[in-house]
C-alpha cells in the first residue's frame, strides 16, 4: 500500500533537521577559523548526552583553562580559540574521522582522545596530519612512540605500568602488605593492568594469592570475592560499576582488607556508588586528586571550577585543564603554530607548576612520549572525603623497540 504523504513529510522533516544540524555545525567551526590572528586548538572528546560514555568534565576543565589564558593575554599576545569534535572512545573508526575533521581547521595542537586505542587507530592519520595530539589516557604499550604510537601522539597521564607499579609499591611498602589478590575486567583494560601488576609484584617481592577476572558488566562478584579471602589487600582494575559491587560484597563477607584501584575510584566515591564502611579502606592510584589535595594550585583550580560549573572538579577536568597548559607552553616554545613545530617543542619542554599546571610537579616527555611520571595515591574515607596520602615517582619507561 503506497501512500506518498508520510514519505514526503518524513523526507521534508529529515532534510530540515539535517540542514539545521549542518548549519549549526558549520557555525561552531567557523568561529575558530575566521580570525587568522588567533591561536587555534582542537578538542577531541564528547560531552554529556552525545554518547553513553560522554562526560562534560574534560570540556569544562579545558574551557576554564582557555578562559584563564585569554584573560591573561592569550598565548604570546594572541587569543586562543578552539573547536570541539566529538570523538567516541568506543569507536576508533568514528574517532579517527573526528580527528581528521578537526584537522580541517589546522589547529596548532589538539587535546583529546580518552582511550589509547583511539590514538593507535589514528596513527597513520596523525602521521600525515602532522599535528600533535595530547591524549588524556593511560598509555599502554601499543601507543608508546617507537612502538605503534605516532610521533605526534602524547600521553598526559603516564603509563598503565606506572600506575600498577605505584599501586603495588604503595600497598607493599607503605601499607606493608605481603600477599595481594588481583582482580580486573576480562577485557583489554583489566587484563593489561593485571599483567603489569603481576610484573610489579614480582619486582617488589610480594606474592599474589590469585588473579580473578570478571565481566565489565558483572552485577555479582561472589565467586571473585570468595577467591580473595586469603589476601591482605586487593588490587581491582575495573570500571566503577563492578568496583562498587566488589566493595559492597567485601562488606557483606566481612572483608575489611584494603582495596586499591585506578581512575575509577573517585567516580565510585563521588557518585556515591559505594558508601560508608565499603569505602573506609579504599585507595586509588591517580594522576591527580583535586578532591583531597594539599597543593594550593590544585585547590584554587577546584574552587574556580566549583564556582563556574557548580560541581566539584574531578581528576578528569583537572587533567584536561593541564593538557591545555601543556599545549600553551609548547606553542610558546615553538614560537609558531605550525603543528610540526609544536610537536618538536613538545619533545623538549618541561612544564612546571608556574606554567599554570595543577596536577603534577612537572610534565616532561620521555622517549615513549609519556608526559607524566607521578602517581598520586588517594585514600578515601567513609564520609566520602579523600586525601592524597602519597605521591610516587615512577621510572621512565625504556624507549619502546630498544
Amino acid at each position, binding site marked *: 500500500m503506497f501512500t506518498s504523504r508520510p514519505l514526503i513529510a518524513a523526507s521534508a522533516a529529515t532534510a530540515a533537521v539535517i540542514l539545521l544540524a549542518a548549519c*549549526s555545525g558549520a*557555525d561552531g567551526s567557523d568561529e575558530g577559523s575566521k580570525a587568522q590572528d588567533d591561536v587555534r586548538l582542537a578538542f577531541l572528546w564528547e*560531552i554529556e548526552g*552525545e554518547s553513553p560514555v560522554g562526560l562534560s568534565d574534560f570540556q569544562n576543565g579545558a574551557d576554564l583553562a582557555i578562559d584563564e589564558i585569554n584573560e591573561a593575554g592569550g598565548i604570546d599576545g594572541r587569543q586562543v580559540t578552539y573547536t570541539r569534535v566529538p570523538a567516541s572512545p568506543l569507536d576508533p573508526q568514528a574517532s579517527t574521522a573526528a580527528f581528521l575533521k578537526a584537522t580541517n581547521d589546522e589547529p596548532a595542537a589538539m587535546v583529546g582522545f580518552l582511550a589509547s586505542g583511539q590514538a593507535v587507530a589514528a596513527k597513520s592519520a596523525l602521521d600525515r596530519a602532522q599535528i600533535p595530539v595530547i591524549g588524556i589516557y593511560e598509555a599502554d604499550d601499543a601507543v608508546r612512540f617507537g612502538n605503534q604510537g605516532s610521533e605526534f601522539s602524547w600521553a598526559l597521564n603516564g603509563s598503565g605500568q606506572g600506575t600498577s607499579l605505584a599501586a603495588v609499591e604503595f600497598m607493599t611498602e607503605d601499607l606493608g602488605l605481603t600477599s595481594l589478590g588481583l582482580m580486573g575486567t576480562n577485557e583489554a583494560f583489566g587484563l593489561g593492568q593485571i599483567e603489569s601488576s603481576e610484573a610489579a609484584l614480582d619486582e617488589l617481592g610480594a606474592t599474589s594469592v590469585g588473579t580473578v577476572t570478571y565481566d565489565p558488566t558483572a552485577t555479582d562478584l561472589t565467586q571473585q570475592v570468595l577467591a580473595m579471602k586469603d589476601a591482605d589487600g586487593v588490587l581491582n582494575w575495573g570500571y566503577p560499576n563492578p568496583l562498587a559491587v566488589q566493595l559492597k560484597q567485601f562488606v557483606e563477607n566481612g572483608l575489611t582488607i584494603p582495596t586499591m584501584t585506578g581512575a575509577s575510584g573517585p567516580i565510585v566515591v563521588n557518585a556515591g556508588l559505594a558508601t560508608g564502611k565499603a569505602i573506609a579502606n579504599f585507595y586509588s592510584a591517580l594522576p591527580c586528586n583535586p578532591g583531597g589535595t594539599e597543593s594550593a594550585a590544585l585547590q584554587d583550580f577546584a574552587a574556580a571550577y566549583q564556582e563556574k560549573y557548580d560541581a566539584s572538579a574531578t581528576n578528569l577536568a583537572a587533567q584536561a585543564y593541564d593538557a591545555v597548559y601543556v599545549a600553551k607552553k609548547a606553542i610558546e616554545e615553538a614560537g609558531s603554530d605550525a603543528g610540526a613545530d609544536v610537536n618538536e617543542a613538545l619533545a623538549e619542554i618541561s612544564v612546571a607548576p608556574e606554567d599554570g599546571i595543577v596536577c603534577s610537579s612537572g610534565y616532561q616527555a620521555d622517549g615513549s612520549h609519556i608526559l607524566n611520571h607521578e602517581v598520586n595515591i588517594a585514600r578515601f574515607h567513609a564520609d566520602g572525603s579523600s586525601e592524597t596520602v602519597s605521591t610516587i615517582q615512577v621510572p621512565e619507561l625504556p624507549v619502546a623497540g630498544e
Partner: protein
Amino acid sequence: MSSRIAFPARLRPTAATAPVEVEHYRRRRVSLVLLMAVVAAFALPAMATSRSDAYQVNVWLLYSIAALGFYWMFCLGGKFAFSQAFLMGLGGFVSAAVTQGGERSFLWGVVVAVATTAALGAALGWVLRGCGEFYFALGTFAFVQLGSVYVQNNDWIGGQHGTQFGLAPPTIGDRVFLSDQDVFWLILAVLTVCMVAAALIERSPARRTALAARTNPLVSALSGVSVRTTPIMFLALGSALGGLSGAILAHWQGSVALTSYGPDLAIGILLMVMLGGTGSIWGPVIGAGVYVFLPTTLTGLEQYSEVVYGALLLICIVAAPSGIAGGVERVWRYLSRRLRRGRRSTDVAG
C-alpha cells in the same frame, strides 16, 4: 489483510521477517553496477574535499561490503546473523596474524581471512541449522561472546588483549596503497567486484532457490530444494565479505581493535540493511552511507544528536518500511505510472 501469518509463534516461517520484493529489471543490473562504479570513481574524490570526508568515504565503502554480506545471509539466506561485525574484526585479526613478520603479503592475509570467516560462517550455519530467526540471532550472539573472549585471551590472534598493531599497508605487487585517496581506489575496486557478484546472484537460480527455501521450507524440500544447505551457503558467502572488509580495514588503518566491532556495529549493520532496503543490492550501500554520514552531520546538535538520530531512524522506518531503496523504487514506480497513464492509479490497496 493482516500481514502476520497465522502460525503458532514457534512455527512462524522466517518469511515473516524480511519482505520479499519482486524485482523487475534484473538484466540491467550488472551494467548499472559498472555505471555506478564509474560515476563513484569520478564523483567521490571530487566531492570528498577534506581529509575527514575522504576517510569517511572509505569507511562507507568498506561497511558497504560487510553490509552486502549481511544482505546475502539475511535477505537471501533468511538468517539473521549477529556475527557479521565480529567476523569483520576477526578478518582483521587473522590477516594481522598471517602477515606478521612480513613474510606473507597483504593478499595472503586477505585470502586467509576470507577463508576463515567463510568457514566460520558455514560452521555457525551448520551448528544452528535448526533454529528459527530469533534463536539463530541469539546463537550467533553467543558465538560472538565466546569469540571475543577467545581473541582477548590469546595473543597469537588477539595481539595485546584484543588489539593488533603494525599491520602493513595494503600492497598488491609493487603497488602500495598508503594514503586514504590511494586506498579508496582499492576499496572501490573490491566493492565493485562484490556488487557485480551480487548482481549475478540476483539473476541466478540460487536466489530463487533461497527465496523458495525461506518462504516455504516444506514445499521447497518436497520440490527437491536443499532447504538446509542454501542458507548455509549464503552465510558462508556473506561472512566471507565480512572478513574481506575487515581485513582491508585493518591493513588500511594499520591496526585492529576488538572494541570497534562490538554490539554497536553489529546492530549498525542490521540498521544499514534495513534502512537501505532489504529488497535490492543497493540497499546495503545506501544504508551504510546513512550510517556513516548521518551522525557526522548531526554533531552540531551536540547532546541532542543521539535523540535526533534515533528519531530520524524511526521516521525512516515508519515512512519507508521497505528501506530507502524500496521507498525510492516505489516513488519511481508511482511517478512513472502517473506519467504513463496520465491519471490516478486504479491499483487497489491489497
